[in-house]
């Protein structure tokens, strides 16, 4: 197996606004199974960061444990990163964001990492509206530990060994909606046309952006009878295409009147939802929940942007924390001395 990627790149690779090529957002060569959906998500994140011209060193990747949580090694090799403990990425992300709110945080997790061991941390992260992009690479199983059913496995889905899953699966996107998330989307690893703009929008969004990405495990969950195989997912996909136009760019694509809905983000970027004619509204949390539930009842996988509230205050704002990253504060500001401590104590008497 090749353990390095050749150095050569296409000589005509385009550069982004900051002069980087997409290769500047590459990571190490993947060690995931050939064909794993997670690799496609890695590529989508790489492409999204390139297209949005975020400088690699202004990005921090955080993850837990699992094949999915290994992904950050395979993209953005020049960015910051923390591969944490199983299910504990939210704590690390929270600490990092409190210390430096100026970085773009990309969290990558799995359905096991988030919906089982990490469930407690996850819901608190959602309700606190931490300013980050949180991607769950959802394959319905514990890939890294050889394919046991995860908590998102659909009821009735057949595991590779033949066992039928007797439990109702957790729908993380609905859960995030219920818990007050400000940006909720779902996508499929095999649909970069939709996934890339969603990731770009999530990174531009100021607040907690959750994307549940169906990402087939080719090794343990890609057989007949699995509801999260490539074939089954494609069969039941009900996608709503999305375009993302960053603040700086002109809108060049034209849409048939009445077929799209435009949503403007805090920084002036615009998300265009295509096929949005039939009354889809991204600012209606209840309607979004209903639509997702209906699709689920029909056995369909609704993908696209489900809900967005661009104006919700994020954790740093709610807690009214220092706007300057800690690494830019001087010793005196960080450690103001006994005088200040005294006056604080006085204030508490």
């Amino acid at each position, binding site marked *: *197996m*090749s353990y*390095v*990627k*050749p*150095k*050569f*790149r*296409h*000589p*005509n*690779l*385009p550069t982004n606004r900051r002069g980087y090529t*997409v290769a500047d957002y590459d990571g190490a*060569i*993947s060690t995931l*199974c*050939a*064909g*794993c*959906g997670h*690799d*496609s998500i*890695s*590529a989508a994140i790489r492409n999204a960061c390139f297209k949005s011209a975020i400088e690699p060193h202004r990005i921090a990747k955080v993850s837990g444990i699992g094949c999915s949580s290994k992904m950050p090694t395979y993209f953005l090799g020049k960015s910051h990163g923390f591969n944490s403990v199983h299910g504990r990425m939210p704590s690390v992300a929270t600490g990092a964001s409190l210390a430096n709110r100026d970085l773009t945080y990309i969290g990558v997790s799995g359905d096991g990492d988030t919906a089982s061991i990490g469930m407690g941390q996850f819901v608190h992260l959602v309700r606190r509206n931490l300013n980050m992009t949180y991607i769950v690479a959802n394959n319905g199983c514990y890939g890294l530990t050889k394919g046991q059913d995860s908590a998102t496995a659909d009821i009735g889905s057949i595991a590779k060994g033949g066992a039928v899953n007797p439990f109702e699966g957790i729908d993380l996107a609905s859960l995030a909606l219920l818990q007050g998330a400000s940006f909720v989307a779902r996508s499929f*690893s*095999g649909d*970069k046309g939709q996934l890339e703009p969603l990731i770009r929008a999530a990174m531009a969004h100021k607040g907690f952006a959750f994307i549940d990405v169906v990402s*087939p495990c*080719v090794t343990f969950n*890609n057989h007949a009878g699995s509801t999260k195989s*490539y*074939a089954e997912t*494609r069969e039941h996909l009900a996608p709503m295409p999305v375009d993302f136009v960053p603040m700086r760019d002109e809108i060049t694509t034209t849409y048939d009147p009445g077929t799209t809905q435009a949503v403007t983000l805090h920084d002036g970027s615009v998300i265009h939802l295509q096929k949005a004619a039939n009354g889809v509204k991204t600012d209606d949390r209840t309607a979004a929940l209903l639509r997702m539930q209906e699709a689920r009842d029909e056995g369909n996988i609704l993908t696209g942007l489900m809900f967005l509230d661009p104006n919700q205050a994020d954790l740093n704002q709610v807690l009214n924390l220092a706007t300057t990253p800690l690494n830019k504060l001087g010793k005196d500001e960080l450690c103001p001395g006994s005088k200040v401590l005294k006056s604080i104590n006085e204030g508490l008497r």
Partner: protein
Amino acid sequence: MKPTNTTNPEYFHKVVDCQYACPAHTPVPAYIRAIAQERYSDAYMINWESNVFPGVLGRTCDRPCEPACRRGRVEEEPVAICRLKRVAADHKDDIRDRLPKAGAANGKKIALIGGGPASLTVARDLAPLGYELHLYDAQPRGGGFMRSEIPSFRLPEEVLEEEVGYVLDMGIHTHFNTYIDSMADMLTKGYDAIFVGCGAPRGRDLPNVPGREEGAENIHVGLDWLANVAFKHTAKIGKRVIVLGGGNTAMDCCRTSRRLGGEDVKVIVRSPFEDMKASPWEKEDAIHEGIPIIDNHVPLEFVVKDGKLVGMKFDKVEAKYDAEGRRSLISTGEDPVFVECDDVLIAIGQENAFPWIEKETGIRFTSWGTPIINDDETFQSTRKNVFFGGDAAFGPSNIITAGAHGHKAAVSIDLYCNGQDLEEDRPPPNVTLISQKMGIHEWSYDSIPVDDKRVAVPLVALEKALGDRDLEVELGFDPETAFVQAERCLNCDAQTVFTAPSCIECDACADICPTSCINFVENGTEDDLRPRLMVPAENAEQDLYVSDALATGKVLVKDEDVCLHCGLCAERCPTAAWDMQLFTYNTAKAAPNLVPGLEGL
């Protein structure tokens, strides 16, 4: 676009850029791998089967393969294909027992006129089939221009001797020092077919430039002068030499002059430096030997004083290009430039000359003086039993082209002598396509390209080189350097072969591909597809590989342009829809399986 028909061998042939560009289609990556594995004799035999003169060509080939080499499109410099060929020749063992022998006599007699690479290739290809081959040359030994024109500081005599010998030792009847002065005569001698490989022997002169006649004693036609040097009739030249012309002959003339007493040697050429016909490396070599190249100077006059040449006058010009890019040289109007000299060598081109082929033979010629030939496959002239090849066929070219002609002409001669149709019955190329999978993610070749840069071949010290006309200037690569240089080859013959029904469209190949070759897109016309790819496919010379429609209705489109043949697409494919398959392509030779044991190398 329609799905690519990969069962047509020409598709994958074109992907192997070097081999495709080589007139003889030498299997370059195969011999380069053999060199990397220190199998120099195998590397030599792969070459010998294909081009007959690996040692000669490894030093002198015009190497159209190198500008074509894929490596030159992904970094600065192509693989050192030509000089690696020399490595095979330098480091091989005694290979004589691997050479084919003359076949049992088949009763057919062939005459070969001229003993250059074209005729020698025909001889090599036909001898194993039992033809009685008679080779005629006006020179005292075989090799044609390789012997009489290419200076021995570029091509040592032993190297030429060895490889000409391999051919002649196959029982060829040689008739040296024999100038053929009548084709009509030849046709009465009972040959079943005649091959004309007499080259383009006439050097162009400047008969109308004033002073040409008066100064004749010190004005020489380059082609004749080089031959005189080669056969040791000329051993000296004046201290100050002007070489007129900008081609490779001019470069050989000036470098030879430096070795025969020329101290102040200049090349003076009409055209701008960039437009000169000489290969870039030959210009470099001349400049390295202290020879200035003065461009944009058109000869006006040979200045003769007291019956002796004293210099030349030139008109300074500027190149102007019209809308179609046609060049004209316009005088700058300045005073003529006078350049002093003792001798002038005229190296401004060469032409075909067939004064010995009579009209009544039925062999007809074009207005350019080249024979009318059926096409560049059969090489049959307007007289059915006479075939042309090498420089004699289409005018001056190079050794490897002469060899390529020779192979095709030999096939034609064999078909002709067996009463078969030269077109219908032509054998196809010998092609195989074999998976290189060794394990789950293991390939039989070094798939990941190395980053090493090309290095130049070391040279002997300049002073030493200029002191000895016969001393080879280039030292050749040592085995260690050769290994690194060989590893630079991208193995373009390891083809990416795609099987659409196996693809699950997981994107793994498109994601991993380091050079962004792979795309899953909606189909369209080629003009529509090219700009739509991840990196627009701007190099129209390189094909798009398009699959059948996939489950989603999209198609796979791979731009062949800068594929590294790294195999990562196939490694990352979960269903083996991609496979790396070794493609071998050998042009048909008159004698099949000329060198047994080369299959699959």
